[in-house]
């Protein structure tokens, strides 16, 4: 009855051998293809560097002005625009400007990449049940796997620094945009699609004229979620050398610097609220035609 009280696990030697084989296999893979990945990711690295440089070296009043203009164009709301300016002024006053700009750069680049990759994948998924059946479990894994775990292969493949951090953030943040693009495409009114077909729309015209515009509010909700997830990942990514607001937080955890932790934590909250309110207001504006109902 031994097997009844103690789980009959794989024997230790074989398990060790298995783990070793996988590790060695992956190590060989990283040695063989690490350079290739770095080459492929070079444009990303360049883009990331440029955005960060732009945000950190431009004079702060200009940066705040630019943020205010973007917030105004997206939301057309004075409340949100003034909120953005005040938040950024406070962040600067408490001497977290440089770190905040680095974090913003990371979030923006990760979000842009997630949109570029996520929306086409979401569209494919929305159009094919088979693709959905394959991708859904993968997305489930990406969303539930503890984020520290997939830092490991990323670091093995690309080392530490901005780009691996960016990849880790993006992988963590991409599922909502894929899922919500898929959902948005699937929720498009069947009657309207039929009308588009009846007028002889090609697949591309159907996508461009009907599916994407009608799915856009849902997709915007996905973009909003992706931004929030990317910000949440910033602290974790600081463990692999991503600079920004995450690093002081990590230091504060290690040394129990309560105030340092709170300040930087609040700065993350601040920019999260900026991104959230602005992108949500933009999403709402896209749905304006739905609000005015004949009565």
């Amino acid at each position: 009855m031994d097997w009844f009280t103690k789980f009959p696990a794989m024997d230790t030697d074989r398990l060790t051998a298995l783990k070793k084989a996988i590790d060695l296999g992956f190590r060989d893979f990283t040695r063989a293809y690490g350079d290739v990945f770095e080459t492929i990711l070079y444009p990303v690295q360049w883009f990331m560097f440029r955005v960060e440089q732009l945000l950190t070296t431009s004079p702060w009043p200009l940066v705040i002005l630019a943020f205010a203009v973007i917030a105004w164009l997206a939301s057309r709301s004075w409340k949100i625009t003034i909120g953005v300016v005040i938040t950024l002024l406070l962040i600067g006053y408490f001497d977290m400007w440089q770190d905040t700009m680095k974090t913003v750069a990371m979030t923006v680049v990760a979000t842009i990449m997630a949109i570029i990759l996520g929306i086409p994948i979401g569209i494919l998924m929305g159009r094919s049940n088979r693709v959905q059946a394959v991708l859904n479990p993968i997305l489930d894994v990406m969303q539930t796997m503890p984020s520290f775990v997939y830092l490991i292969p990323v670091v093995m493949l690309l080392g530490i620094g901005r780009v691996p951090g960016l990849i880790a953030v993006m992988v963590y943040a991409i599922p909502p945009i894929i899922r919500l693009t898929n959902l948005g495409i699937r929720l498009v009114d069947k009657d309207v699609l039929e009308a588009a077909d009846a007028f002889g729309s090609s697949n591309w015209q159907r996508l461009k004229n009907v599916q994407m515009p009608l799915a856009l509010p849902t997709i915007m909700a996905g973009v909003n979620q992706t931004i929030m997830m990317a910000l949440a990942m910033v602290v974790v990514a600081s463990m692999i050398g991503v600079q920004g607001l995450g690093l002081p937080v990590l230091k504060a955890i290690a040394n129990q610097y309560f105030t340092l932790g709170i300040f930087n934590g609040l700065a993350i909250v601040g920019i999260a609220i900026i991104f959230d309110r602005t992108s949500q207001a933009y999403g709402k504006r896209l749905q304006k035609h739905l609000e005015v109902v004949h009565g």
Partner: protein
Amino acid sequence: MAEQVTGIGIQIRNLYKIFGSNPESYIDAVKGGMSKTELNEKHNHVLGLKDINIDMPGGGIQVVMGLSGSGKSTLIRHINRLIDPTAGEVIVGDEDVVKMNETELREFRRHKTAMVFQKFALLPHRTVLENTVYGLEIQGLPREEQEKQARRWITRVGLDGFEDNYPNQLSGGMQQRVGLARALTNDAPILLMDEAFSALDPLIRMDMQTVLLDLQKEIRKTVVFITHDLDEALRLGDRIAILRDGEVVQQGTKQEIVLRPADEYISSFVREVNRGRVISVDMVMAPLTGEPKGMPIKSGTVLEVAAKKMTDSNVPEAHVTDASGAVLGKLAINEVISAMVTPVDHDSAAA
């Protein structure tokens, strides 16, 4: 109306549609006489349409009437192949729609057909004008030309001044005017209308019927109109086909249907019809013997109007003339009145 043949005719030949996972394997059984019930209960497939044969002449309004579940909406979707048939032919002009490949079908839909939908199916994020140009935009016409055509039809359906409104800002009747303008702007010879007016209030519906009839006098398209309402069918249809359980039970002109209902099912519909407004003097007149007496009445006049004219001028007899004035037959007031009254056997059946 129907004598002036313009536009493209549509012939539906031996059309079958079976819904289910493997329709092809039951088609022979259905052709061999398997019933709808047996197909459903034993094989879990639904017989949507069974051996449909309809000739729709070009330039006329063909109404397909039936209650819900009769297959009428399925039938109209075979004409532009939004639904693929299980067997049969749909010949439009001289092409079989069923045999077209994807590209041919797309071109066919772009240039030969336009469709109006029961639930309007407008693009909610586009304004009235942007919705109306849709067909031409898909065809790739220059924007200027698109808008020129669209504005013309927007005016024609009475939506002047609403070009920049969103569909949500309009009432149901106005939304369907947009649907109609969108279809007409496409300038296709065939207009498919799937219960186009069924979602509208009775008064607005009458209004839209009038709009359609007025337009049809000038555009002379081949219109296929689906409805569940016999009054609407009789008002609009040059020819009417009545569908029940996926089969055509009767087809013909409205007068044929009212005067000679094929079975009890159709009689029960026809009983409530105001015959005086449907039947024309041509159906009642007798061959002329001797000199034409009384007043002339134009061929195609409905009985109600003829009776009013005859009683107003107090003549018991009249003669029917065609457009050139030639005499076609004679008409007596008592025959006019007896044809307007619902036959006794149907009356007793109703009691």
